[in-house]
């Protein structure tokens, strides 16, 4: 029996802390920890009664754990640390006497029986906490004020934008009317012009049929020329190449070095030529002729069509000029080599090239005797046709003027993108040209305004700009953080980008898709999604978590999962509105509403009403 008393005494020792209060008990609950008349304690859930001596006896009796505020016996219980000098804490009873001096319990009262001495650090912790609290108050104060300021700005901004929208809509109505008018004029004139063109076209066809043989003849001449010139250029290329590959670098011949440098520069600009020349050299002349004929045809030659034939001639003529330029350049290199190389060096490859060049020059096959006549007839044929129409045929019209820039989000279904502009025919009919010009000007004006109106409507009606439009003034504002290998840029409600610090290459981490609702509803989280796709992974995305601060900044960016970035950020929109700001804002809003009411009596339904009107546009 003695042992039992000792034990009880021992247990009793743990019930009460030094002060005499029940250990670990929240003072707010103190009234409930009194023995009733029968000497019992009622568990806080009311479901059990136990002898009061069993409170804090290091054995869990109550299902709710309420009998052991001062021990770790009950899982899910709570231990109260008074933390004098700091704020009191309620820690999980699992942390009582676990041998760890928990920072939350800075007075060390939770470790009274674990063999660990926890010093009372509340004074120090309290000081730090106060300093931190002070700092937070400052930050939050400044942030709150900034936020209120943003809300004020936003209100002004929304009004400005709204006004702007109204203005633009009026202008758009005017522009639409102007456009309709210009279009009507243009259509009328074009119909007239079309009739004229039809008449002219008949005459053209006739003339084309007559003169087509002249073009075909000339095209053949050109094809032969090209074939010959390519062969000559190939000869030169192969000669030069043979020197590059086979010369003896030991000799250090200046002329050779110059030639090599010139040739290297030439090859840099004409990378395909040498491999092609080698290929042709392998091919044999017959096969080569056939292939070149095919090439000629692939230039669009068609003996039955005057215009395509003429185009093929243009292309071939250009190529002829270009090959001639190459030949001149390459010949010059070989001439310089021939004139300048050091004959003492006995570089067999160089000497072979010089001899080869001499052969090349000797074998300069002159043009076919009748080519001049054929060219003359070609010129006559085209001149006759051009004389008939002082502008190129309709199908060769220059590109239409570029349509006004339209945001991609609006591109779909927009009539201005899809409409195929008609050619400006530089017609002798100046009236038509002017009508078309006027039409394009009107269309551009209307398109620009339509876009502007759409953007404004989208911003004002379809964009979640946060409570009180707090994001409106900051939308699109960018901040960045350099993390060593990369700089990250986040543009508010717009997009996130990773920029390599090595080569400045930019990787799209996503565009703003909305505010996340994960976890705490009060948390400010922005999601940027659908960025560049990862190899073997998802499309990149970034989730930005904001805390309150006066200015926007990025504290850190990590990639906890492949291609899914998480940014810890700060910004004023994450702040609570400054004291008084709310009332102030409400007042202002009321004032404005009153003003608006004066201007527009239908204010409450104004937005919706407008939307309907716009949609009808």
């Amino acid at each position: 029996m003695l042992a039992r008393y000792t034990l009880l005494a021992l247990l009793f020792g743990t019930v009460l802390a030094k002060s005499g209060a029940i250990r670990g008990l929240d003072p707010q609950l103190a009234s409930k920890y009194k023995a009733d008349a029968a000497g019992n304690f009622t568990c806080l859930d009311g479901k059990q009664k136990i002898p009061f001596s069993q409170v804090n006896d290091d054995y869990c009796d109550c299902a709710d754990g309420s009998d052991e505020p001062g021990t770790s016996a009950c899982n899910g219980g709570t231990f109260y640390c008074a933390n004098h000098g700091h704020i009191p804490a309620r820690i999980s009873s699992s942390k009582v006497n676990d041998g760890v001096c928990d920072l939350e319990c800075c007075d060390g009262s939770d470790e009274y029986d674990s063999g660990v001495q926890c010093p009372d650090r509340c004074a120090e912790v309290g000081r730090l906490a106060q300093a931190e609290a002070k700092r937070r108050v400052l930050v939050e104060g400044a942030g709150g004020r900034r936020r209120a300021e943003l809300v004020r700005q936003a209100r002004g901004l929304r009004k400005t934008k709204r006004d702007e929208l109204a203005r633009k809509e009026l202008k758009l109505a005017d522009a639409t009317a102007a456009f309709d008018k210009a279009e009507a004029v243009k259509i009328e004139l074009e119909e007239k012009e079309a009739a004229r063109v039809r008449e002219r076209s008949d005459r053209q066809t006739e003339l084309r049929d007559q003169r087509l043989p002249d073009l075909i003849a000339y095209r053949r001449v050109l094809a032969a020329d090209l074939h010959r010139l390519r062969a000559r250029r190939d000869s030169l290329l192969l000669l030069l190449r043979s020197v590059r590959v086979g010369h003896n670098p030991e000799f250090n011949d200046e002329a050779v070095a110059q030639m090599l440098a010139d040739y290297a520069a030439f090859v840099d600009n004409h990378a395909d030529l040498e491999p092609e020349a080698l290929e042709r050299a392998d091919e044999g002349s017959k096969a080569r002729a056939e292939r070149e004929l095919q090439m000629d045809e692939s230039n669009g030659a068609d003996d039955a069509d005057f215009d395509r034939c003429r185009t093929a001639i243009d292309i071939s003529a250009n190529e002829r000029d270009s090959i001639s330029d190459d030949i001149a350049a390459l010949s010059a290199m070989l001439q310089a080599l021939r004139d300048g190389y050091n004959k003492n060096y006995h570089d067999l490859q160089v000497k072979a090239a010089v001899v080869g060049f001499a052969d090349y020059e000797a074998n300069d096959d002159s043009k076919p005797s009748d080519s001049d006549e054929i060219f003359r007839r070609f010129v006559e044929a085209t001149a006759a046709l051009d004389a008939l129409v002082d502008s190129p045929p309709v199908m060769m019209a220059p590109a239409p003027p570029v349509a006004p820039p339209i945001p991609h989000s609006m591109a779909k279904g927009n009539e201005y993108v899809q409409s195929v502009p008609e050619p400006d025919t530089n017609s002798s009919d100046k009236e038509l040209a002017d009508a078309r010009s006027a039409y394009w000007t009107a269309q551009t004006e209307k398109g620009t305004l339509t876009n502007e109106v759409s953007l404004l409507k989208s911003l004002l009606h379809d964009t979640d700009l946060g409570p009180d439009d707090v994001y409106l003034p900051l939308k699109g504002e960018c901040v960045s953080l350099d993390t060593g290998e990369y700089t990250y840029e986040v543009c508010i409600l717009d997009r996130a980008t990773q920029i390599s610090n090595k080569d400045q290459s930019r990787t799209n981490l996503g565009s703003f898709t909305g505010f996340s609702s994960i976890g705490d509803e009060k948390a400010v989280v922005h999601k940027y999604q659908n960025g560049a796709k990862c190899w073997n992974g998802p499309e990149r995305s970034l989730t930005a978590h904001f805390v309150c601060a006066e200015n926007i900044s990025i504290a850190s960016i990590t990639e906890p999962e492949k291609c899914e970035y998480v940014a810890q950020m700060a910004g004023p929109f994450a702040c609570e509105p400054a004291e008084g700001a709310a009332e102030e804002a409400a007042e202002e809003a009321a004032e404005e509403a009153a003003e608006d009411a004066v201007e527009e009596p239908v204010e409450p339904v104004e937005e919706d009403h407008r939307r309907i009107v716009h949609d009808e546009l």
Partner: protein
Amino acid sequence: MKLKRSTASLLYLAATVSLLAQVGLAVKQEDFKTSEQVAFYRRHRAFADGVAKESQLLGKSVSASQTASPYSVLQDSVYLDGHTLVASVQHGTDKVPLKLKVSFLDKGIVRIRGQEADPLKPRFDDTQKLVLRDGGANLKYASAGSLQLTSEAVNGETVHIVSFRDANNTASLRMTERPWTVEYVLNNKPSILLNSKGLFHFEHLREKPGADGEVDGADGAWEETFRSWTDTKPRGPESFGLDISFSGYEHVYGIPEHASSLSLKSTRGGGKDAYSQPYRLYNLDVFEHDLDSPMALYGSIPFMVAHNAESTVGVFWLNAAETWIDVTREKSSTLGNLFRLGTASKEPTVSTHWISESGVMDIFLLPGPSAADLYRQYAELVEQTPLPREFALGYHQCRWNYLDQADVLAVNDKLQEHAIPYDVIWLDIEHTDGKRYFTWDSGKFPDPVAMQKKLAYNGHQLVTVVDPHIKRDTEYRIWKEANDNGYFVKNKEGTDNFQGWCWPGDSNWVDYLNPDAASWISSQFHLDKYNGSTPNLFVWNDMNEPSVFNGPEISMDKDIKHYGGWEHRDLHNIFGMLYHKATADGLRTRESPDKRPFVLSRAYFAGSQRYGAVWTGDNAANWEHLRASIPMVLSNNVAGMHFVGADVGGFFGNPTPELMTRWYQLGIWYPFFRAHAHIDTKRREPWVFGEPYLSHIRNAIRERYRLLPYWYTLFREASLTGMPLVRPMWMEFPKETSMFSEDSSFMVGSAILVVPATDADANQPIDVRLPTQENWYDIHSHATYIAPLKRQFASDLATTLVFARGGSIIPTRERQRGSSELMRRDPITLYVYVSRTGTATGSLYLDDGETYSYQNGAFIERELSFENATLTSRPSPRTKLSPEQLEFLKAMSKVRVERVVIVGMRNPLTKAVVVENGQTRDIELAYAGSKLDSECTIRDPAVLVGNDWEITLS
């Protein structure tokens, strides 16, 4: 980890791209050899087929001593030399004599060693030194006097019989001369038969035929190629094979590691579920490995166990080279006829055919007859699993990769915030400076010591990965020292370092066969060498098969050279273990006095259990892998590799919240409990999935922590007896023949039956079989079930099916703490699950969890028994008075038993009388809070765990 080849090189980039093109996960079969692509297997196969054919021609059925085996014992060569029976065996035509030595060890173990009587050059024989207890130097042999050799003629042929006595039975070994066969006769039945099918074939060493000389006809004997790799085989053929039949047995188990069933499948002869390839033992890094396959994986343990209702026997094939094992099943009517020992009843037989590429033939036959006997015998050879660091039994939080110091601490904080206990957080390869192990990426981990101190503050540890490949970088101290000292594995010519690719790109590998190199690498783990390490840092050896990205089968060429001129082929399967050992040695000795190390390894061999834990490698987040983990973990335990687990959640891919929950609910029953994830997967820490999953996962992890005293006691048992921690049903219920292939439920120790839910549909009822005439109790509700019982149970996501076996006492610690370290001084709760006869037994082991002072008696080990309504705690016979013990008792002087819950008493009880140290006190019983009449709680008996006491109920 992992095979994370994706970032390793262009070559592997291409490989992975082509992988992606396929649907789902699939191993690249073409990277790995089939048996047909292995010359020595082909040669033995051809030999075996020839023998079978010839036996048929002779009109003989394939059975003992009636086969056409060309090997016979040389006349008059047999004699008994002390504890060893010596015989010379020779092939009928090649006439190269082989010396066979059959040694008789303590406990009935028989060892058979064989090689050329006069080898042309030495065969690799260090495997025994590196694997056996004390290098095999102190094996206990049977006394010569207990052995008796008699020779007699049976059917005109000589049979030599050695009779000996093990603890229980008289046993004998019979050796026939023509052909040579050996039979281990147990209980008057030939049980383990060698060469009874005539497949014994020993390729003797030979000179290479000259360039213009005769051509050696053997297929692939002097060179073979696999894809773009050529194995030059300068030593020529030196493989050997032998059939080992288990007569009277239908089930064989073990030989991990394979993603296969617990009961091994047939690999020849077709039949239901049979494989078309043999089981292979060759440590390999297999990217996205298949399930239900005999393909080789990361570890190899050539230990096979056969079990029937009468006995459990084993074969340990001690060889570190590539080994293939064919399994066939048959009914044979002729067994036993030869010796006229029994009737000609049809005995089921499992025949196995073992083929190894090189080394000495070295086989141990273990007679059992009980599982407990068998594991004592096996542990006698390769040692037990030592007591691990206690924290290692807790929850391990791993991911490839926790990005940086802030990330590590954030995960630590989150776990604490969600009141989820854990012990260790892990860092994969990205923590290093460019995959230079022993270094830190200083940008991400500016102050690893401060980080570890923060973790340690709440009792948490850190593990870093330290792989065996060393980046070729002259500025890297580790590389430079190893290179300067010539510690690297050499190329084929032996002239320069072997070079291959792994994570860091061009790498070299330290040659752990070189004792100097091994001790050098050990010392690199010391606190003064491993910068940024503290005593709270432990190590993970990954990729130690070894994984070589550009090598044949993603490993080393077999013909490259190790210390002593040995080829890699000779020691491939122990390479990973040698690194594991070196790492563990380094950690053990970094503080004074020594402390228990913790090292996780991916590659392993028999003996690896001495050095730490292993895991099953790179699994995947799907239900099939969840199910496959059960037989994989069990097979490892069957083979003595106890401390094993599978990656919780599945390494590749993203688990659904349901799969994640179920995996935690199973994972807490793996001896090694670690969650891990591939770098390309989503975060999946326990809180990520939100409710209700978070609560389910938290509850599971807490259950692991509650039961830590039981787990630790199980480890203690394993460290003494070699008994597995998690056990197949047959092991605990050896006569329940219908459960011999059960591998979807299992026992944890002898007291707890786990029936995991492994179906995506939580409404799917689960079949539960409760064996034997015993009571079982739902471990959560304490509902009683009278066995034998077969029925379906519902198991929604909040429910797990775990049963306590009537007659067991399970110690727990019920207070929720943040880590195992913070529970050390917590009181114990004992659960007494009463048997049908009203009794129960159990034990409880406690020590300091980190030092070796338990070897000097610094532990509390109690034998708990419940009988006649009295619960008694007595010291184990190992408990000895010593200064260390007194010191430990003092440290535990406040640790009491705070609660005893008695489950299954039929008569209501009202009172308990406690007697402790001769003093008596009464205690009221509480039924409050329990839903069942059959359960009562002894409220705070307050007896100390270190004291003798008894509690009598009335």
